[in-house]
Each structure stands twice: as C-alpha cells, then as structure tokens.
C-alpha cells in the first residue's frame, strides 16, 4: 500500500485509539494528513511536529466549526469518518437528549461534513471515503440500541454516497469493527468486573482487535488495491460473529 505516498487524507476522530494509529500509518507511508479530534493533547510530539501533519481543532457537531474546518482542507484523496461516541442507555430510559447526543456526532455531523466536502469540491475524482461502523449495526447489544441504530444509519448513508458519487469514481465503504483495545475499551473495562471482561473477550476466537487491525483496513480501502470496492461493509471482528446465533 505504498501508493498512498503524497496523497492527501482527512481523518476525523484522529485523537481516538483507532484514528491515531491511522494517522501514524499514513505518515509512515508518506501521505499528507489533515486531522481533527476532541483531544489534541493525546497526540505525541512526533506526530504534531511532522511536516505532513496538520491538526484542525473542531467540534463536528458545530456548524460554524464545520464551515471553518472546510476552508482549511485541500482536495482530498480519502477521508476516514472515525469520530463517534457510544453512550449506552437502556431503551426505557432513552430521552431526546440521548438521541441527539449520539446521532449528532455519529450520523448528522458525518452527513453535513460530507455535503460540505462535496459542495466545496474537496473530494477528488477516485477518492475513497471510509466510514467507521460497528458490528452492533447488525448484531446489537443490550443498552446499545441507539449506538447500533446510528451505525446502521451510517452504513446505509455510505451506500447512498457510493451510488451517487460512483460517476466520479468516488468510492464509499464502511468498516464494521468489533471490540478493539483502545482507551474507550479501557474505560469500559473499568465499569466491568473481571469475570465480565473475561466473558466479553472469550467471545472472540482471534481475541479482541488492535487499532492497527482497523488502520490496515482503512489503508486498504484508501489504496488502489480496493479500487473495485464501493458500497461494501467490511466485517472486522476477530471471528466474533461466527458465534452469533443469527
């Protein structure tokens, strides 16, 4: 996947566990990276000072921030829509604030950002858009109905993009990731007992994933190696769904 050299990518959620590794892998391959995220301070000095890296602070749920962000981006060869939150809530307790919180970042902001990228002609012909989804979009878990719904919506939206933008050779694919060892997972682990953690991990025939597992798939979808893939949903789950009763 050395064909990423000199190409320009934009990554949202770049300060999350997966986004950060995607940034690192892109820079290693000579790509030019523009990124945004919630917590710039977690990025290491080596990344921040890299000549091919530009961090643009922005709240993607804020229309003004989105407008400002767009003005700082060059024409892009690829985008990773990696920003998102989980925020579990049992169904009977769901209120509008919960729906707004999850959908505003996991879905609405992505739709609006994509529109702005297209309006401003920032998606090059043959560029590749990658949407970070979750296995829960098809195999939801208790308490995660809103999160799963937001990811299912995202996958459907990505397929719409694939169809509308195909005439320009622009591709759109989703990665349906299962549990990956990130800071978010560490936080989740803090709320679970040792037995509960062991039970979760034991459901993965290949063990839980590493951020690099997802980053490799992103790079593949951005590269010419996947030039005939669009509208696809790629399961990356360490075999989790092999045990699914569905």
């Amino acid at each position, binding site marked *: 996947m050395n064909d990423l050299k000199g190409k320009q990518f934009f990554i949202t959620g770049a300060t999350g566990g997966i986004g950060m590794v995607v940034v690192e892998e892109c820079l290693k391959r000579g790509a030019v990276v523009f990124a945004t995220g919630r917590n710039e301070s977690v990025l290491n000095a080596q990344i921040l000072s890299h000549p091919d890296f530009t961090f643009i602070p922005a709240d993607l749920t804020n229309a003004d921030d989105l407008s400002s962000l767009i003005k700082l981006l060059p024409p892009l060869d690829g985008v990773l829509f990696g920003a998102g939150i989980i925020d579990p809530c*049992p169904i009977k*307790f769901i209120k509008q604030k919960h729906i707004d919180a999850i959908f505003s970042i996991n879905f609405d902001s992505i739709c609006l950002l994509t529109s702005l990228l297209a309006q401003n002609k920032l998606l090059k012909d043959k560029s590749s858009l990658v949407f970070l989804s979750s296995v829960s979009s098809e195999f939801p878990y*208790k*308490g995660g109905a809103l999160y799963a719904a937001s990811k299912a919506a995202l996958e459907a939206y990505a397929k719409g993009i694939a169809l509308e933008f195909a005439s320009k050779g622009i591709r759109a694919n989703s990665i349906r990731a299962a549990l990956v060892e990130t800071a978010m997972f560490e936080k989740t682990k*803090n*709320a*679970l*007992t040792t037995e*509960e953690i062991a039970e979760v991990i034991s459901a993965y025939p290949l063990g839980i994933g590493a951020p690099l597992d997802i980053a490799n798939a992103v790079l593949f979808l951005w590269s010419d190696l996947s030039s005939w893939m669009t509208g696809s949903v790629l399961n990356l789950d360490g075999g989790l769904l092999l045990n699914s009763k569905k």
Partner: protein
Amino acid sequence: MEIIDFIKVIEEEFEDLTPGTLSPDSVFRDMDGWSSMHALIFVALIDTTYDVLLTGEELKSCLTINDLFDITNLKMSSGGINA
C-alpha cells in the same frame, strides 16, 4: 433523600424483585440474573430519577445499595449533577 425511598425506586424498576427484599446492606450484584445490563439500568435510573450521572468507575466502586445511595447523595449535594 432517604434510603428507604431510594430502595423503593430500585424495587419498582426491577420488577423481578419482591418489594422488601432489598436492604441498605444488600450487595446489588448478587441480585438474581445480574448482568452488565443491570449496571446500565442502575446508571440510567439514577440519572433519570435524581439527575446524577454515575461513571462506570463510580459504579464499580460500590458494593451495597447503601454505597450507591451515598455516592448518589454526595453527587447531588456537591452539585456534581451530570457535570
């Protein structure tokens, strides 16, 4: 807030619980069929009823109903409501 009211809220939420079975010293993870879903329900119930958002870490630090009551009360009185 009195602990008796707190227990009543919990017993009303968990329909499988026979009213009067919980006491301040009850270990809530010993409830029949306890799962991580129950933990989510506790967090959501306390959020909805008392406008207090417990973190996963705070929930994990609690063992008994009384521990939950104390931390909920503490966060209500300290103004750390949904902060």
